[in-house]
């Protein structure tokens, strides 16, 4: 078994192969020089230090008899010969191959875009928080989750922050407007300046010129305008791609014996009835595990709905499912200004639930809502809005 990509997904898959009882060889190939580490903590360094949190230490790889190759990216796949070729020239044969190649940050496609740093890897995090030690003002391009988490981390260091967003609101892709407004209000309270509805004309080493002609000064300029699935390798093997590597509900690609999972995979999802690509930590884990089981003889569809969280200042946001503006929204007001939004389809089926509160105030309910969604339930709207009704009761009927 060969796994390409030693992030959360690939690493989880390697261990899951062993947990499934597979006793043959397992090789995990990563392009970064480090032991596999968790990415979510990178935007939340404690005490100003970016310290990698390892997914597993060296000892655990040895114990599980997983061969970990770092700093040696796979450069091509030969699907006929069933082997992969590494940058070092080494060739490794496979019986089954898993592509967990993840994503790359989107580069800013404007003049001087290279002056805006991007954020994905441990090196990126170290560079940004090192620069933050001496920076006075930061310009963050993109008001998505990564951009706003960084804004929060930089404000905690008392660095001035301007967030520039081409859309007319923050978090437009993943978060309902009502919750995005709460988050933006918190950022404003903390002193962040927002410039919505304006693009970038050009970037210079210490300023950004907006499309409306204004110039925003900053000694730290970060572009967080989304990510692109890393499909280059898949394309060398002739795999079908389209917003990610196309896989079926078993996470099999269009080429036999090659699977794909995690951020790079666009999987046929039974719940949504179409191909979906998710970019969250838990999906990376879950799909990695599911692919591993199917690689060693399992035959299970991957059907989990997505779930993610984001912490900004003292606010914790959690969302499960895919909220859509077409949904009917039922609000449940919780103590201490925490709030849940239940997103219902036309037929009353619960499709998504989003929530925000201090710390992890909404975590329990979001987790229960996820189970309600996965069971395909259509809970009574009055029960959903009634704080005295425990969601657990709705789940168990």
């Amino acid at each position, binding site marked *: 078994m060969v796994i390409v990509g030693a992030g959360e997904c690939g690493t989880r898959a390697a261990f899951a192969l062993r947990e499934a009882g597979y006793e043959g060889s397992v090789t995990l190939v990563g392009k970064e020089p480090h032991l596999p580490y968790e990415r979510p903590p990178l935007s939340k360094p404690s005490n100003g230090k970016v310290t990698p949190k390892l997914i597993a230490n060296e000892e655990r790889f040895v114990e599980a008899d997983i061969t970990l190759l770092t700093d040696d990216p796979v450069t091509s796949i030969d699907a006929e010969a069933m082997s992969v070729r590494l940058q070092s020239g080494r060739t490794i044969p496979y019986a089954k191959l898993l592509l967990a190649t993840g994503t790359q940050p989107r580069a800013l496609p404007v003049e001087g875009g290279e002056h805006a740093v991007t954020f994905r890897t441990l090196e990126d995090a170290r560079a940004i928080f090192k620069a933050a030690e001496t920076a006075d003002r930061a310009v963050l391009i993109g008001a998505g989750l990564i951009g706003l988490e960084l804004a929060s981390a930089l404000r905690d260091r008392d660095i001035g922050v301007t967030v520039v967003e081409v859309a007319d609101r923050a978090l437009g892709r993943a978060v309902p407007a009502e919750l995005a407004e709460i988050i933006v209000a918190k950022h404003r309270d903390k002193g962040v300046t927002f410039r919505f509805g304006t693009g970038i004309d050009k970037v210079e080493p210490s300023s950004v010129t907006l499309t409306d002609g204004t110039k925003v000064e900053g000694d730290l300029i970060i572009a967080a305008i989304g990510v692109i699935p890393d499909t280059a390798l898949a394309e060398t093997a002739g795999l079908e791609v389209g917003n990610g590597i196309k896989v079926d509900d078993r996470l099999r690609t269009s080429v036999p014996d090659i699977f794909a999972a995690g951020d790079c995979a666009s999987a046929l999802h039974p719940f949504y009835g179409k191909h979906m690509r998710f970019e969250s*930590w*838990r999906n990376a884990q879950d799909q990695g595990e599911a692919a591993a089981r199917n690689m060693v003889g399992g035959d299970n569809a991957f059907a989990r709905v997505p779930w993610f*969280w984001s912490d900004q200042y003292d606010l914790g946001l959690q969302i499960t499912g895919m909220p859509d503006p077409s949904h009917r929204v039922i609000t449940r007001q919780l103590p201490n200004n925490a709030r849940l939004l239940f997103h219902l389809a036309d037929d009353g089926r619960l499709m998504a639930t989003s929530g925000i509160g201090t*710390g*992890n105030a909404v*975590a*329990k309910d979001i*987790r229960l809502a996820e189970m309600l969604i996965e069971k395909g339930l259509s809970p009574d709207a009055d029960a959903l809005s009634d704080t005295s009704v425990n969601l*657990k009761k709705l789940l168990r009927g």
Partner: protein
Amino acid sequence: MTNWIDACAKDDIDEEDVIRFDHDGKTYAIYRSPDDEFFCTDGLCTHEQVHLADGLVMDYVIECPKHNGQFDYRNGEAKRAPVCNHLGTYQTRIEGDRVLIGLG
């Protein structure tokens, strides 16, 4: 010798739920099981120091609110990745309507 600490009233915890209890610079999680027994574990997940009391209790399992790591709260056993280290557990005792936890 066990040092028994009066932690809370029985009714402070809903059935099949958990609350946080801080004592002497440490944090604990106290659980009420579906069959009305009380249990106590360390308060923080062994993975990333998240308060477990914000997590969901289903039957005898507590799930971390951040990473979905799971523990059996009766014995502290780690049940699902990413957690691999077990939780410390503590004795409990009921006196009238009070829940006591045994430390030290």
